[in-house]
Each structure stands twice: as C-alpha cells, then as structure tokens.
C-alpha cells in the first residue's frame, strides 16, 4: 500500500480489445485519479469513456494493463476483486435499483450481507443518507414508485452506504428527463464538496466546468487531452477537442 501517493487510482497501459484486436475500445490508457478530487471524462459516443470507467472496477475485463487501486493492481490474477469493489461505489445510467426491494432494503442489503452491519445500524445510516438527499419519506416505497431523478439519487446513496473510497458515475443523467437532471447534479456537487474522490463520465459540460478538478477528453480509445476545466474548455489544443466542443457547447 502506497498511502503516501496522492492518487487513489493509477491506470497504466489499459487496453480493451474485442474480436481478437480488430476492435480497440481502449488502446493504451494512462490516467491518474486524484484522491478527494473530481475527475470528469468527456468525449463523443463510442470513444471508450464508459468502457474505461467500467474497467476501473473490472465490470469490463481489460485485455491488458495495470489498474492500481489504493496501491494494489486489481487487474492481477490473485486479487479478490469483490473486496475492492466494496470500496468503489458505482452509479449507472439506468439506475439499476433492485425492483423487488424497498428503497431502504436496496440501501441496506449490501452493508448487512457484506460488512455484517446490524440491521438497525444499516438502517440508521441509510436514513441519514436519505435525509441528505431529501428522500427520507420514501424509504418504504418501491423503486417503481419513484421518478427517474429520485431513483438516481437513491442509486447514489445506495453506493454511499458501502462507504466507498471512490465513486464512479457512468453517465448518471443521460437517462433522465431534462427537468430532473438538476436534482441529481446537485447531489453530486454536494458529494464533491465533502471531499469524495469521484470519476464522472458525462455529457453535462456545465457540470464538468463547474465541479471538475480535472477534465479528460477521450476519443477512439485514447486520451487526447487532459487538464483543468479552464485549460480544456477555454484553451483546447487538439483539433478533435475543438471540434467536439464546437458541437456540444
């Protein structure tokens, strides 16, 4: 464990190939995720940004490369990935709440089963988090009774229940009605202010500009440019980034 390093995740030479190398979703990625900072990954569709994010907790199995999480290469052979995933919260585009459980059960099942937290303790923690996102009164409802924005806020606090070291967001607002995007981004902003390490794949350039500490622009499986929001949005270097920004801004 290299506790002294400032990076919570260090990725070196990450590759993800399909069809025996014919398709290269990721083609040699090096990236550092700083502890306590917000890293936003942007890029056009099919650029590999989601694949990169999903590779960080091995939902996508890389073809090659090193992913050091808290100083351990979790892409190695003898690693218990499940233990590391407990420390990496993930939020999906389509929420992926468990439809057969109440909101409270959605949030408490992982801590109770994996960390052996008592039911009372897990529920107390869950209720605290629900209050933070203003959904304490929905604790005993089922996911189908919530709006998209509410579901995504629940998905965020469900991940937080495991007290992760880093949160991965995979296009968290892409499946939402426009009017619900704000409430979810607000929760993420609040979360960033608490000093949570975050990696966010998003198309919300406003959010990237406002909240990110570092912005990474990807295209065709490689990182084209990275820097502060200032550098990326106001002073793009590459033609591809300029082209991309011209289209989305």
């Amino acid at each position, binding site marked *: 464990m290299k506790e002294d390093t400032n990076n919570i995740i260090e990725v070196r030479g990450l590759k993800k190939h399909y069809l025996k190398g014919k398709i290269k979703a990721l083609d040699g990625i090096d990236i550092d995720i700083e502890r306590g900072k917000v890293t936003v990954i942007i890029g056009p569709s099919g650029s590999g940004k989601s694949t990169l994010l999903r590779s960080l907790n091995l939902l996508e199995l890389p073809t090659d490369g090193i992913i050091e999480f808290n100083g351990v290469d979790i892409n190695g052979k003898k690693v218990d990935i499940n*233990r590391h995933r*407990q420390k990496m919260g993930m939020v999906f585009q389509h929420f992926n709440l468990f439809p057969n459980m109440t909101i409270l059960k959605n949030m408490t099942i992982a801590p109770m089963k*994996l960390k052996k937290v008592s039911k009372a303790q897990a529920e107390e923690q869950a209720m605290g988090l629900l209050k933070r996102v203003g959904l304490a009164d929905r604790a005993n409802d089922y996911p189908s009774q919530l709006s998209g924005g509410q579901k995504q806020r629940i998905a965020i606090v469900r991940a937080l229940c495991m007290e992760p070291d880093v949160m991965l967001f995979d296009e968290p607002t892409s499946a939402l009605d426009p009017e619900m995007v704000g409430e979810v981004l607000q929760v993420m902003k609040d979360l960033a202010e608490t000093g949570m390490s975050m990696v966010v794949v998003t198309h919300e350039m406003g959010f990237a500009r406002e909240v990110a500490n570092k912005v990474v622009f990807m295209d065709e499986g490689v990182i084209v440019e990275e820097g502060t929001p200032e550098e990326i949005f106001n002073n793009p270097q590459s033609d591809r980034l300029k082209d991309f920004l011209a289209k989305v801004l």
Partner: protein
Amino acid sequence: MTKNNKLKKILITVGVIVVVLAAVVGGLYLSVSRTAEIPSSDEAAVLVSNAIDSMYGKNSAVAKEISEDIELKINDIEQDGTGCLINVTIDSADIGALLETHLDEIVALDDGTVKSDELKASINEKVVSLLPTTEKTTATVDIICADVDGTWKVYKSEELADAVYPGLYKFNQDNSESEVKAVKRLLTLTDIKIDKSEPDTRNWIQRSVDELKAQFKLNFITDGRWKMIVNGLLTTLEITGVSLVIGVVLGIIVAAIRASFDKNNDEMKKRGGIGYGIMSFLNGICKIYLTVIRGTPVVVQVLIYYFIIFKSLSNGTLVAMLAFGINSGAYVAEIFRGGIMSIDNGQFEAGRSLGFNYVQTMCHVVIPQVFKAVLPTLCNEFIALLKETSIVGYVGEVDLTKAGDLIRGRTFSAFMPLILVALVYLALVMLLTFLVSRLERRLRKSERRHE
C-alpha cells in the same frame, strides 16, 4: 369508476347465469311433466273398480260377491313420476256375515278330494273355527297407476287385495296346514291375483339418479373401493410432491451452472486456475443431462429406471419419485435458466459493483426476481408433472389413475371410476393454479404499486 364497471360486469354475468339456469331447469321440468294427463276422479273410480274386478278368478263366486259389495271413495289423485298415485278409501263388504250365509255352500262344495267321513267332519268343524270373522272394515290405500302406451294400468298390490278382502287375503297367504288348504279351496279364494312387481313409474331423471346411485355404490362403497381411490390419490400426491422438490432443487443447480458458465466464463477464464475447467466440465454434463432427458419419453425413462437401473430396488414409489424428479429437473432447469437470462444485466452489474461475488449476487439480487418471472411457467411444469405421474401404473404402482382403472376392471363399469379420477385431477390442478396465482399476486406487489 372502474369499480362501478366491475360491479356492472359481475351483475351482468350473474344475470346471464341465472337466466341460463332458469331455462335449463324449466326445460327439464317441462320434459319431465310431459306425460299423459292424470285421470279425473270418476275415471279413477272406474279404473280402480275394474282392477278389483280383475283380481278374482272365474270360479270365485264368493270373491266376486265380496268385491261387488265394496264401496270406493277416491280421495286424491296425484302425479308420481311418469305415473300417478290414486288415494282411495275402501269400505269392505261384511265378510263375516257373507261367509256365514255361504257356509253351507262352502262346505258342500267339497270337490271329492276329501275321502274319509271323519276327516270331513273335522274339516267342517275346522272350517267354522278357521273362517275369518272379519267384519266391515275401512282402509285407505295408495294405488299406483302406470302409463302404458297412453292408457292407465292399475297396479294390483297386496295392500289393495287386503283392503278388498280384509282378513281373507292374509289368511289365504299365511296358513299351510292341510285342513286350511282345503278351507281355502272351499272358499275359492286361492286365485286372487295380484301383480308381482311394482311398475316403474320413475321418470328419466329419477331413473338416472337411481342408476348413478347404484353405480356409485358399486364402484366406491362395495368392498370399500373408495379406499383404493384415496390410497391412489395419496400415492399420486406423494410422488408428485417429492419429485417436485427433487426437480426444483436439481433444476436450480443445473440452471445455476449453465447460467454461470454463460455469464461468467470470461471472468473465470481470465482468473485461470482449476475453476474454469471444473465449470466447463459441469456445464458439459448438464448439457448431456438436458439433451437425454428432454429427448426421451418419460414413460420410457420410468421403465428404464424400474427395470434396469434400480432393478434391485423393490420400492416402486421411490423409483417413480426419482424418475419424475430427474425428469422434471431438466424442464425446471431450462425454465430457470431462461428466467436468469431474462433479468436485465444491469441488475447483475449493480450487485457486483456493490461488492457481492457472483454467488451472492445470484442469491440476493437475481434469483428473487427470477422466481417471480418464472412462476407462471413453473406452475405449468408442476401441473404437467402432476398429470404425468399417471403413468406409474406401467411399473405396477397404484396411483390415482391406476386405482380408477382397477375399479373399472372389477366392476365392469367405466363411467364412475374414470370420471371421478378425472375430477380429482381437475380439482387438484385448479387448487394448484389458485394457490400459485395468489402467490404471484403477492410477489407482484412491488410492480403493481405504480403511481
């Protein structure tokens, strides 16, 4: 609004049912009551007196006199099945007095069979002592009339004879001493004719009901045959229940192996080690199991288990349980595998991202949802299993079907036992369907509460 509509629908349904029932009952009533018109009081009197006249033989002068001296009073005539019932009050002749006046004639009528004078004297004495001393009596009897091709035929019963010839008819029937025989001959009453059997005035409904009752008694009550049905039912339930459990357990294991291999083999391949080899071996075994079991008829499987594999096992029920359990497992496995594959991969990823391993994700997240998704299909499989067990008769097990068939073989009547067996299966399946639909409703609670 919807509630009102529902109520309306129910009311209409009930209304239609009532109308149909009324039509059926009315039709039946009409068809039953469509017989010859019952006779009027006068016609009845004629019918009865004709019947009484036809009771005595040609030579029975005394009987004729007695029967001519009676008085009839028709009280009531009512429909009874296809016939009618005439209630009549009969005032008899004063038989004692009549016999008294005829005594000389009676004794003189000696037809020469009695030879000895001594005996003649004793008979004379006997006759006097034996003669009934009945006086005028009044009796009320019900007389059955049957409709024979549109005309009424009166049934001459013992009761009627006794009312017309009070004392005498019984006297005629009861005694058998030789002297009495002679007296009877002297009285010329021996040939009072009555009808031997009661006419069948039942209409077709009564007749069918009686027939069914008799059949029921023959097939289920006699020799305690109902016990065969009950024992057969227990055997069926036993085999179905145990093979259901075997099938579900086996099916879940096989489905888990197959689905894990399909879903998880990339990860295992990457991690390497012996795990991947074991899984791919198990997956192969499961595939062979599914192919063989689903590719051969269950009857053949049962026969193979019974006569080849478990040849030494004398317990046929156990063999049947195993056979059906292993058979059902294959179908349940495919049902469950389909269910697992139908669950959105996002659910799986959400579970894994929280830190659950593959098995925990399956148990805590996927399987509960799968169960809900496959319940209707699974219910179908259970129903099919219940009915499939009816073939265990092939290996000498007496289940419900075999029990019904055995009764059929013994009573030579197929209707009752086979229909009953069918009804029992039907009731079981309906009960099962009802229970599963209730369970389904409860499981669906989370989906139903849309706002």
